[in-house]
């Protein structure tokens, strides 16, 4: 089967969105995690999740289309969960911007510190803040106890 035929066969008919954003080139199987961590389940707008779509570049990929303007802090969360994904910002049905994603220097309340000796384990109102300490390995450290957290989502 030729590439064109393959694309035709796997093409999904999800309508164009007028205003919102598309997260594309998500590592296959990771879309639901991004959906949950961005809190998209709590929104009252159209959200399309496409998993295992055909990709020339990746073989398979996931995609999420959201009919709502992108909140700035969402970019950090997306980058942290899959920094090789791409984001297209759509207005009037057209792509107006494709912001560059890179591992955020600080990540707040996305992951939790699991060190039982960390102050966050007993003081519930504290934010769980992690700093990026090694961008190559995707290593983050807890702001309070410096416990290491290796980002398994980092893809070479």
């Amino acid at each position: 089967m030729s590439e064109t035929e393959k694309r035709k066969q796997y093409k999904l008919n999800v309508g164009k969105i007028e205003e919102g954003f598309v997260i594309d080139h998500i590592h296959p199987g990771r879309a639901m995690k991004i959906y949950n961590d961005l809190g998209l389940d709590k929104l009252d707008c159209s959200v399309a999740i496409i998993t295992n779509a055909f990709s020339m570049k990746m073989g398979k990929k996931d995609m999420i289309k959201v009919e709502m303007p992108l909140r700035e802090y969402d970019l950090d969360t997306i980058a942290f969960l899959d920094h090789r994904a791409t984001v297209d910002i759509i207005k009037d049905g057209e792509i107006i911007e494709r912001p560059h994603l890179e591992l955020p220097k600080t990540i707040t309340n996305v992951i939790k510190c699991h060190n039982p000796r960390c102050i966050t384990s007993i003081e519930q109102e504290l934010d769980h803040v992690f700093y990026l300490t090694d961008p190559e390995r995707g290593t983050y450290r807890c702001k309070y106890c410096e416990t290491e957290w290796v980002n398994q989502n980092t893809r070479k």
Partner: protein
Amino acid sequence: MVRSILSPLDFSVEELDQLMDLADDIIRDPAKYAHTCDGRILATLFYEPSTRTRLSFEAAMLRLGGKCLGFHSADSSSATKGETVADTIRVASCFADIAAMRHPKEGAPLVAASKSTIPVINAGDGGHQHPTQTFTDLLTIRSLKGHLDNLTIGMCGDLKFGRTVHSLIRALVRYANVKFVFISPKELKLPSYIRDDLLIQNNIAFREVTKLEDVLPSLDILYMTRVQKERFFNEEDYVRLKDFYILDKKKMNLASPDMLVLHPLPRVNEISTEIDDDPRAVYFKQVKYGMYVRMALILTLLNIKPE
């Protein structure tokens, strides 16, 4: 702006030199500093028991003419009522001019410092940081050796969990031509974030061995540590490793006549009492240096200079 000390690396090498110069001057002329903190109060907020560190802080403040207040266990503080560290420090800030905090939870002093209007000194937070112990170790070495560079430093015992060892390594790598020899059983070797991320990445010379006798003659400093029972989940492992190294007269005969033995204390069996009178055993002198360096730290953070 209020400055707190949470990690030994909060001071640059130059600032550390100034701190130790001040400690030296206090040792030379304590009378000059006896009233520098008249009317000032140190709050010792100790959420877990500690003998040496708390007494050292209190002695330091008293010798500067100041006074101390505080609590010595979480049971005697509002923590039992559910008060947060942030609220406790806000309250303590109303009563005291400076605070020393020990807490079993790592990062608690950082939380306190972020809400405090007075300087906060981390007096030990779990297995994380204990900066005044590191300052104590550095002042002891500098005072007795005369320098912190060009030294071969042996560290022996629990190198895996020992926070004093990790902090001291981080502080010492900033000095020129410092070599390390790490002596430990394989179960208690240095963690990779010190070995790989700090030493190898910065091209610091080091060796890892298991037998103390083999390396003793080459050392300028031997830093002994206790194998801490509370760090083990398995009693069997603790029993097997706790007496792995015992420094005694026989071993001391192998060491150079100038080698110094340091220990953060308390010791259990790792240093035999038979070497306590050896002039190279300086771990009780080290305690005294600890008080002097805390005096210097209190003065520095309160920005007080003798008249």
